[in-house]
Every structure is written in C-alpha cells, then in structure tokens.
C-alpha cells in the first residue's frame, strides 16, 4: 500500500475512510477507491438510433435508444415537451438463479429511478409530443447493474444525438462493515462481517446527484463521505464514457 501511495501523490489527501482502511482487503484485491475494469462501446445495435454497452468487471449492460419519435397512444403525448421513458430488465440467465422473464416490482422501480437519473441531463423540450425510449438489458450481473445500465444508457442517448446538457455517470459505493469502497461486486454485496454490507448506487450529472439509493446501515456522517467518494470515482467513469464516444466519432460541443 505504502509504495502505491508514493506513486500516486493525488491519493495522499486521503479521506477518513481511507485512513481506516490500512489492512482492509477487498475480496478481489482492489483498492478501496478502485472500480472494476470498465469497458464501454458505442454503436452496438445497428437498428437503434443510439446504443452502447458498459461493463464493470462481470456486470455487463447494454442499452438502446429509439427516438425522439411520435408517442402513441396520443393521449400520452405532452405538447410542452418530449418525454423520456426507460425500461430496465435483467435477462433470465444473467444471474445464478434464473429470473422469471418480464417485469417485476424491482425492475419497474429501477426503470423509474433510471429515468429520474437521466432526465436532468436531457434537453428534449424542443421535441413536443415525442418520446425517447431507452431500453436497458443486463446480460451478466455481478452487482451494480443499475449503475452499469445508466452509464450505457447515457452513452446511447449521446450516440442517438439527443440534446444533452452533460453525460450521466453512475457508480455504487459500498460500506463493508465500517469500510467505504467503490463499485460493489456481488461478493461484496453479500458481505456479512461486522455491520454487513450497505449498497449505495450514485449517479451524478453536471456535478449534482441524479441517482441516490441505499440499503443497509450507515451513519449520516459516513454517507456524506460516501457521496464525496462517489463524486471522485465518477471522474474515471466519465473518462471511460468520453473515450467511447470519441471512438464513435461523437464530440462534446463546447457551450
């Protein structure tokens, strides 16, 4: 650990959680603020207006955007603005115990929070009566699937050329016993020692929190640290997303 710190002077401004972390071992040997290997690719589904895949290690999400297109039935249309509609679902064989295909209460809720996370980044006021459909599927799940899904969806939206204020980047923060870590894997989600596992998916856009959920047991002070840790980790996620967009020939417009 000590040698790594000297190699990376940025890390010397360690947070409190980091100081506590001396000797803390993650199941896969990652540093506490290290995500799993990230991969992103834009333009994976030719039929879609925009598409992308994003993975954190063994968690793989793909997303496709169709739209803006006319919304039917007509009574759902909004003459003031375009509408964003998200659906998230896991393939039945993406997890060890088969999931029944189709929607569940869990998938409906994740679809909704995904929509809320992406909406603030979009600028679809000028597309009245239309809908932007975002479909997210999880091919392989090793925890943090909604975060991978949001990252893929944000890329797909940019690929589709939907006007955006910023990209949306998402990562989960975990608390394993008393230790905060970045990008929770399934092995970590099932952590049982001490205070157990707390899972906190975050998404940021434009420097602000767009997605925030939590399950477990955490002190308010620790949560504040978690938010800062997420903000920092998301800079790396953002870079991976930007690289993927660049590769697909999509450039950031200067404001």
């Amino acid at each position, binding site marked *: 650990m000590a040698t790594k710190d000297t190699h990376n002077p940025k890390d010397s401004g360690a947070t409190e959680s980091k100081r506590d972390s001396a000797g803390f071992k993650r199941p896969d040997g990652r540093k506490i603020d290290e995500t799993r290997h990230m991969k992103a690719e834009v333009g994976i589904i030719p039929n879609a207006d925009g598409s992308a895949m994003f993975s954190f290690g063994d968690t793989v999400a793909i997303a496709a955007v169709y739209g803006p297109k006319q919304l039917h039935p007509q009574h759902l249309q909004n003459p003031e603005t375009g509408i964003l509609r998200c659906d998230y679902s896991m393939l039945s064989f993406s997890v060890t115990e088969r999931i029944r295909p189709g929607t569940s209460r869990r998938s409906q809720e994740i679809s909704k929070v995904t929509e809320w996370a992406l909406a603030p980044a979009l600028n679809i006021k000028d597309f009245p009566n239309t809908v932007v459909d975002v479909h997210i599927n999880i091919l392989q799940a090793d925890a943090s699937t909604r975060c991978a899904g949001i990252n893929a969806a944000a890329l797909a939206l940019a690929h589709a050329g939907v006007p955006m204020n910023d990209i949306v980047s998402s990562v989960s923060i975990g608390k394993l016993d008393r230790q905060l870590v970045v990008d929770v894997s399934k092995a970590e989600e099932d952590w049982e020692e001490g205070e157990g596992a707390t899972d906190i998916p975050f998404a940021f856009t434009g420097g602000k929190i767009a997605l925030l959920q*939590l399950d477990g047991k955490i002190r308010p002070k620790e949560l504040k640290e978690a938010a800062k840790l997420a903000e920092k980790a998301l800079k790396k996620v953002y870079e991976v997303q930007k690289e993927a967009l660049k590769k697909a020939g999509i450039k950031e417009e200067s404001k």
Partner: protein
Amino acid sequence: MIETTNITKERIKESLKEGKRFDGRKFDEYRKLVIESGVSKKAEGSVRVKLGETDVVVGIKMDVVAPYPDGLDEGVLMTSAEFLAISSPRYEPGPPKIGAIELARIIDRGIRESKYVDFKKLCIKEGEKVWQIFIDIYSINDDGNLLDAAAIGALAALKSAKIPKYDEKTERVQYGEWSDKKVPLVEKNTPFTITIHKIGDRLIVDPNREEEDASEGRVSIAMSGDSSENFINAMQKGNVATFSIEELEKVLELVEDQWKEIKGKFDKIVK
C-alpha cells in the same frame, strides 16, 4: 380538479422563496398526526394514519410458508401498496402502478434493512415453516405525502399485530384466533421514514397535494437509532431534480431533526 396547474406550482415556488407555505406551516413542520387502531377485526393488526387530510390504512396479515433458500431460519416479509380510486380523482381501479410500487418498496426496505422485525423469531421449523408477514397499505384520501404517512402506519400496524394460532397437526393457521404472542420487534431499530422535498431551491417536509405536485425532487430516508446515534437504513432519491452534495448534507440534518420529532409523537400515541 385533477392536476395542479402550472400557475399554482409557480406560485408555490415563489412563495417558498419568500419563506412562506400556503397553509402557513414552517418548512420543517408536519401536519397533525393522528393514529387510530383497529380498522379491521379480521386483520392481525391494523391502523389508520392521518397526516392532515392525508389518510391511509395499513393492515397486517400473516401466513405460514416455506422460507426462502437464503434465510432458512427466517420469517418472510412482503409489503404492498395500492392507491385506491376512492382516495383521489387521479387514481383508477387496477393493479398498482409505479407510484404505489415504489412507495411499498421504500417502506419495505426501511423495515427490512433496519432489522426492526426479528425474523429469526418467526421461524417455526428451520428450512420448512416460517411466518410470513404481509404489510398491506391502502390510500383512503391523498392530500400529499402518502409515503411518510404509510411508513408510520406500517410501524404502528406491526406494533399492534398479534400472531394467529397455528395448529401443528393439521399444519393450518387458525385464522380468526390469535395467540398472545405479538410480532417480534426490536424497538431500537424502529425505522421512521422521512421525506424531504425540493421545490425550487427550498427544502420542505410533509407536502400537501399541491406542494407535492410542485415538488421537483425528493429524498426519502428510513432512519433508526437512539439518542446517541442514528443510522440510515434505506434511502431513495425520487423525481428529476438533482441535489448537490451540500444539499444532501442539509437533507440529512433536516431528517435527523424530524426523526426526533416523529419518534416523539409516535411513542406518545402508540404504546
């Protein structure tokens, strides 16, 4: 009127900027809380909760079922909610929509993650038979903040619930007859769910219907603990507004203050 008009939403926002709510409440002031017990004699436990004119009923039913593979010696919890058509012109009969599903799941997670229910004590025979608790929530009148009202209702209903008699020989629950055992609860883990709404750049609690329609973002937090230390057990940001980290810190402060208030009121009413 079904929808709150944009003009009203704008006026609410402007008024909040000047530090005022339409009904004269402070930003961190809940409406009057009323908890009544005994909605249905057939239920294992039931309550009616009113927050101002918002009115919800919550009932507990129980059954004996096989445990889940990941908790062979633990009881099972299932929370569901329905926004009844009687409670507002904006609801229609039919299966629960996302609003009701989300509400039930937030309340479920608060109760589950806080370990308020002692699930191990709900085991009858490991790997074979455990008690299942159904928490069923129905809106009677929606004047905003169904979520916090329903969360209080779920706690009060659980506290009032008695476990039905169970015949080991016939392996049947003797519905309508109750043992003298109550649902095993861990007092110090009581998870109060408090929702903070963001309208413009102002943060308020317990919105009425119009305020909730004007709300652009919310954070719901289920918090447990005692006077020495609080724990967040479940949390969800809802709706499209984003929160800066500073705003999140303000939300947490508000929730910690409100937690004391609500706990005080709850402990006084529910014995």
